[in-house]
């Protein structure tokens, strides 16, 4: 049947996606300098691996104990019922927020047998997030996208990605001539690179158009979506001038062992079929003071993140000392995402 066209084989490993032409594997000889760096990294990642192994082991135990229990089925059905009739997250009291988060955690435990952590942490006082992107530095490595997909539990089947990296031929900045679908070693001779994602506009056109207020701008400037309130009309996608929004055309799928279990209700928690999603500046990280995954993963330092309200922040230094620009500023959307050059 025709609709099979888009259905993906879930067992096949996304080999092309994860490792095109052995990318990332550094095959040249390591010199003394690199050994130094790797020493500390190795210890850390070994520890991480060990913890992950232990967690996986314990969750396996959990699953085997509770999988066929009738009680669990009943509880799950009851929880589903309550979840279906809950209100819009934006209008919930703190207790209601806590309650839905606990229900979602419990539902995951009943379904998959593991434990996830869903945060309902609100905005930090006196914080307005801003982002700057250095187009002299970006080299199109796409490490940001890799990190983003893993951090935010994006659908692996449809290869959903929030970030797009556009390759421009030097001498012009015309997006129509740019290519975000390049397939060669980077950086290509005579080209420069520019990344786009949700710009978290101060005056977001997507928020206005939503018929059910399922998307809104938080106090810290992050434009978020309540995945459980969204009805999937995709008006926001039509209204976004920056291609910032993505839709779950089919049920999203993340392999159990790849799920990032540190989640936020408005961020990277597991989504469902037929709802919108997008970059949230990794709300589950940024509200704890951490950098978003793309900022952390960028090997060139092209991505700068921080608090726009803090005059001593690096983002404010960039705005004050570099010649910055934003995309489609004429639309009055006031993106909190600036570009600059060295």
């Amino acid at each position: 049947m025709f609709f099979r066209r888009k259905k993906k084989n879930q067992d096949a490993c996304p080999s092309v996606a994860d490792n095109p032409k052995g990318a990332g594997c550094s095959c040249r000889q390591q010199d003394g300098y690199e050994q130094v760096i790797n020493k500390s990294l190795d210890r850390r990642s070994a520890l991480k691996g060990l913890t992950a192994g232990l967690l996986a082991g314990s969750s396996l135990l959990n699953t085997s104990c509770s999988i066929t229990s009738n009680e669990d089925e009943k509880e799950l059905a009851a929880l589903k019922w309550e979840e279906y009739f809950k209100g819009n997250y934006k209008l919930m009291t703190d207790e209601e927020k806590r309650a839905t988060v606990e229900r979602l955690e419990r539902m995951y435990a009943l379904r998959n047998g593991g434990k996830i952590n869903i945060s309902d942490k609100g905005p930090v006082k006196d914080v307005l997030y801003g982002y700057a992107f250095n187009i002299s530095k970006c080299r199109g490595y796409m490490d940001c996208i890799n990190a983003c997909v893993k951090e935010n539990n994006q659908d692996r089947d449809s290869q959903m990605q929030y970030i797009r990296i556009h390759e421009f031929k030097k001498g012009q900045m015309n997006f129509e001539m740019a290519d975000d679908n390049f397939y060669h070693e980077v950086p290509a001779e005579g080209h420069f690179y520019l990344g786009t994602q949700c710009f978290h506009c101060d005056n977001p056109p997507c928020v206005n158009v939503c018929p059910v207020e399922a998307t809104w701008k938080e106090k810290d400037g992050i434009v978020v979506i309540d995945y459980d309130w969204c009805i999937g009309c995709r008006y926001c996608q039509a209204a976004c001038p920056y291609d910032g929004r993505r839709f779950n055309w089919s049920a999203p799928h993340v392999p159990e062992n790849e799920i990032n279990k540190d989640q936020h209700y408005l961020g990277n928690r597991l989504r469902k079929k037929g709802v919108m999603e997008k970059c949230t500046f990794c709300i589950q990280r940024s509200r704890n003071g951490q950098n978003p995954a793309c900022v952390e993963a960028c090997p060139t330092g092209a991505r700068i993140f921080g608090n726009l309200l803090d005059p001593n922040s690096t983002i404010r230094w960039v705005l004050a000392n570099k010649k910055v620009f934003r995309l489609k500023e004429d639309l009055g959307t006031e993106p909190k995402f600036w570009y600059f050059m060295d």
Partner: protein
Amino acid sequence: MKVAISLIYDGFKEVTKGTTAYHIWMAVLTLLMLFGAYAYYQQIVHGLAVTGMTDRVSWGLYISNFTFLVGVAAAAVMLVLPTYILKDIDFSQAVLIGEGMAVSALVMCLAFVTVDMGGPARLWHIIPVIGVLNWPNSMLAWDVIVLNGYLFFNLTIPFYLLYYHYQGRKPREAVYLPGVLISVFWAVGIHLVTAFLYAGLPARPFWNSALLGPRFLASAFAAGPALIILALAVIRKYTPYSIADKTIDKIAMVVTVAAQINLIMLGSELFKEFYSVTHHSNSAIYMFFGIGNKNALVPWIWTSIGLNLLATVILTINRLRRKHNLLYLACALLFVAIWIDKGMGLIIPGFIPGPWGNIVEYFPTWVEIAVTIGIWALGAFVFTLLVKIAVPIEIGKLRYRGNQSAG
């Protein structure tokens, strides 16, 4: 109450009997609806991934048809206005038919919007009080209100009239006339609001035009009454309901003027897009000429332009328009032309090129096409039922007999 039950009973009896042709027609529609329902079931199970829509072209056939049908629904006003307010008797024969068409078109509109939703089960979120309706910010919230309001008027007014005619009583003007008055403005409202839904998005320069609203109205007042003429022609032929030539000629006049205005507006749009080409013209360039090897819409839009011109010429020349067979042909051509132009020709190029200039084409899948056909069948089904009940009441064949049988 007794009268209402009797009306439902009689109505049910009325719609279940008829000629063989009638039964075949209804059977075919039912089959098409079932096929559409099967396709929609596939869509429910697998998600909208079974459609041709993607993150780059995120609205397709469903929203195209929705937009077009809002116009058809709005066009019923062209018949209501003169009948009730100007007391033009020629139109009154057609007005119940027009309102029936508006109801069917609205049913289709709501169905198209519903099948386009990613989470139809969560649609209750849009109901005020138990959900959240983002009014007045979201134009979609406006659209929900005006469409449902319009549906309400177009159901209650004809029902009231039929209900009284059914009992052989004369309906009271004080009751229905205010509703009629409101619905006249409401009809303009539904179509303007739907146009603003698109025109209010600076993200899509192809839609972000002040002309979009007026153009919607002009094309609607061409396509809607054109469809009514065709329906009247069928009703005239297959039912005892007599419709004067004069009525059809008057509606044809409406179609003609609207089609001419529509062409003028099309001309100004083309001038703006192609006299000084900016990168905002890329959608139009893509639609009319294709960009690179991407040219899926080119044959469609030229067909539309050709049919539109031909139909308008036939309508404009008095001698040709008065020949009814030619008139019906022109109406059919015009209807198809505007369906293409306002459906696929408006919605799809809005997304092509995308916000970053990417040209990703859209091709509907069989699921989308099947669901679309199913919904059109649903509309035809509803319209047939309404006409089947309304006609015998209007010609006095179907009357309330409750008093006699009770006495």
